[in-house]
């Protein structure tokens, strides 16, 4: 688990096409899975949408968008 803020570029369907990690832009080859979790809404937590992506370099990353904060984080790396 990483949980670091990142920049993400989206397509017209709001799906990630690239993101920046460790100073480099990584291109998304394929969105393998997308899921959403509600979080502790009763405590003010927002919804989070996760994308498990395969990059052109063969790495697998989990990108997380926090709807309440409108911020992207990298939550997991399988490289």
């Amino acid at each position, binding site marked *: 688990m990483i949980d670091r803020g990142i920049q993400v570029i989206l397509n017209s*369907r709001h799906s990630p096409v690239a993101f920046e990690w460790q100073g480099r832009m990584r291109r998304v080859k394929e969105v393998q899975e997308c899921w959403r979790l509600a979080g502790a809404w009763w405590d003010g937590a927002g919804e989070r949408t*996760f994308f498990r992506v395969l990059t052109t370099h063969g790495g697998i990353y989990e990108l997380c968008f926090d709807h309440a904060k409108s911020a992207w984080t990298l939550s997991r790396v399988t490289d």
Partner: protein
Amino acid sequence: MGFTHLHVHSNFSFLDGGSSVRALVDRAKAVGCKSLAITDHNGLYGAVRFYDYAKKAGVKPIVGVELDMEDGHHIVLLAKNLAGYSNLCKIITRAQLSHEKGEAAASIEVISKYKDDLFCLSGCPKGEIPSLLSQGRLDEARAAAHKWIDVFGPDNFLIEMQNNMLPGTALLNSQLTELADELGLRCVATNNAHYAEKDDFKIHDVLVCVQTLTTLDDDHPLRKRNSEYYLKSPKAMANLFRRYPQALANAEWVADQCNLDLNLGTFRFPDFPLPDGETAYSYLCKLCFEALERLYRPITPPILERLQYELKVINDLGFPEYFLAVWDIVQYARSKRIRCSGRGSAADSLVAYCLGITIADPIEHNLLFERFLNPERRGMPDIDIDFDAARRDEVIEYIYERYGTKKVTDTFLQKRCLSPFLTEDRVAMVCTVSTLKARSSIRDLGKAMGFAPDDISRLASALPHVGGRRIREAMDKLPELRDLGRDCKSRPNFEGRPNILDRLDALVDICEKVDDFPRHLSVHLGGVVISKDLLTELVPLEWATKGVIVSQFDKDDIETLGLVKMDILGLRNLSAIEDALVHIRQHHGIELDIDNIPLDDEPTYETLRSCDTVGCFQVESPGMRGLLGRLQPRVFDDVIAQISLFRPGPMQADMINPFIARRHGLEEITYPHPGMEPILKETYGVILYQEQVISVSHALAGFTYGQADSLRRAMTTDRSQEEMEKIREGFIAGALAKGVDKDVAEEVFSRLRAFAAYGFCKAHAASFGKIAYQTAYLKTHYPAEFLTGILNNEPMGFYPPNVIFEEARRLGIALLPVDVNASEARFTVEQIPILDCRLQISDLETVVHDAGDQSRISNLKSKISAIRVGLNQVKNISEAEVESIVSARATRPFSSFADFCLRTKCDRPTIENLINCGAFDSFGIPRGKLLWLLGEVISAKSKSRKPVVSGFGSCTGQGQITAKIPKQVVEEPCLIDGLSADDLDDQIKNLPDGPELSLHERVRIDYDILGLSTICHPMAFYREKLTRARIRRAREVRDLPDNTIVKVAGVVVVCMRPPTKSGTIVVFITLEDETGFADCVVFPKVYEKYGQVIFNSPALIIEGKAQKMGRTYSIIASKVRPLSQTYRTDNADIKPFKERIRIAGQRSFVRSGGV
């Protein structure tokens, strides 16, 4: 491309659905869905209203169900048509009835039996196939699919796919489509929707916590992990399933083949067994004409014409069988001497009166048939009947025997048979859906949201009985709730979290949204559905409590389906009347025909005018007593008017004041049009009855009675401005055509409109008025017997037993304590010698004169009536213990305390309670000694039990011969440690005397154990101090001049906040002291100041201005103080002064006493 949601849960999935049926249909329509399925858990609870509403909204309804299978998996079934719907009903019924309540589960065998005309979907991730695939068990998943294909065939079994944006969804869907392709099955996309809009997720989440008894901070597998389970638009679904467009198309393919027609509007009456040669109509006519000859002498032409007209209308509408069925039930009841009386608009019917269904004469009371049956509107007649509550079950059993067919044949169900009412064929009880209201929402949802139990309890208890959507309004408006809310909000840390304010707001928010949500199903106490065909053709059934089978549809949905629902209601007042008649028979030797007492008995009207109507049906509440004081009824029509006037509608429409003013000649009686005079004369020109609205429309606007009733109905329901304008135009046009002046017509219409919503059904008032009059008559002439009847049928009426008991004391009836040798199980009447002759002989003569036997006078001169407290009144005494006392005593009376202990089966706590409430006082032994001895007796009794096997004869122990007993093994403690009962009694005498109990202590103990006391009213202990402080007795205030400033004190017996005309909050309090009631009114300013005191103090001192209302008064409160803080005495620990006790089922009432 269109899309239909085929897997949807409404709030009839009971705490697993976050939206109502209506909200789901509205949402479906809003997003462009042409059809919608509802598939609630294991039932069709909301199906009828869904079907009806969806049709009207232009959305095709598809009825389905999500079933739990016996192996724990889920499956979804959808009905293609009516035959499929019937099969659903049968499958659901078997799934429900073959398991314990709440554990419904279907078997594939039953589904196979009723598979026709159904689609089957493989289900959500809890379905067998997706579940196996998720575990990697492909072969088993394939086998499961084959199993369902064998049942439904490849065309009717579909693989269900969902994409709720959970991890693993993509892989699972890929596996599902592969399997479907392999087996030649269709895939269908669903969203497993549990609510309509995305935001409703929070509602659903909290409800699931309520269901699973967890809090939001707990994890639970039933909680959804995100908010994707809503009714998504076709576009959103297309986006989610862009890789599987065929799955979307198949959803529409399924929807196109589902075309259910429930034939709403068709009546389905049960077959009535007729005598040979008769049709239902001919038999009905025969019964009515026979009765007419008995009831009316002479039979005038108008009466005859009326009967013929009613019979014709009944026949034209197709209802003869219905009337015969109702007659049959009433006949049965009367043959068994079960008291009964039809209520509601049925009393408008001469046919109903002739058949003995109703007891108010429609000719004598000028009741209008069209109010009951509108010949121009073929709606199901609705005849509700009140029966003696104690014997209502006998009537229901009769219905089952008469109309039910075969008994249950299934072995499981036979074993499960807990009730004789067990058929699943043509008869079942109707369910009622308990819904979430303000209080229940706060309790359930507050707990789920992690609020402290104390806070939840205080908040819920202080809320009035309103819907959830009015909680916020109540919290802002009511001072006692504002303080509570402030307390909750002021806590700095809520279990470590700082957001208590947000949580409280969220709680109130969600409570508002779940207002009226179904909470659970229970039995409608009197509703019975009777069907011509097997019920499960149309209605799924399930278990309610106590082994009773109920329909899954409530009474409204049953009626919508055209089935006959009888309301077999239990009215405890009828039980009380019957009880009184038994006592009158026993003690006066009179067989009083209460149904035919003269309706002009002056002493009865005097009782009503004096407002001493505690215990009298419908006229005992504080408001009713106040109105009696103002109205001063003289004739039976006044009683009918009384019952009609005292309702929120007439109060808010300000009908009461003009009525009373005109009644007493203080205001001129005017009519806008002379044609209204014959109709409104009986109510002094005031429109009071719905029947009058009909008659006026008929007389002035020329409407037929049927049209006029339609007009009345239209006026009483919510209408748009345009609709009301159309109605108005119709009325004005009709009036003009009859030569009525336009201005007059406008005025009449506006009066009708104002009163139509509030007018009361005169027939219903007449029926209830008859019972009210009967109770007032009994109270007047046989008060001891009548009040005993009330006490024996509590809880009932407006007041708890201790208030009724005190009323008896106020009427001069002697009150006798519990006595092991004199008390029966229930309260009884005794005639006791007069030791303290407070009654005048003339009073006795009046009582006996009614008995018609003058020779009794000399005997009764030496006796008065007394009420003996029954054994059942003792706290925690069991039925078995009472039975053991009564049956042991039947052999011979108890000669001593020890004799009692030896011969009865009471446990120690019960005997202690009996000692402490004086049940052994007649033996002359101080209670302290008995308590000491009790320990010894119990201990020795348990050691000396010897089993006895005998034929008839003796105890083979050590001596004493018992009574003859049948052959069985018994434990007969003949002796205790070698001592006889006499030996023990000698021991008692040798014990030293302890300190005597004071009166106050005895009263306190009485209230603790019995909830009442024969000794005195608790206020008597305060009287000396109160008198010195010039605080009046309640009775004294009656004799004071109007507007005198007074102070009164008493125990709070009533405290309520009913709706008022202006919408402001006014509190009505009734205080009780030894002499009676002081009714007080607290207006908003005073309420603001003393709200906390009023609602938290069991006894109050109220100061204010006493306003006379005829023979009674009302104190307009200016100051309110708690009694026990003002006057500290030892009495503070008597129950009425220690705590406010809420009586279940009473709105906003706070009662005193040990009930």
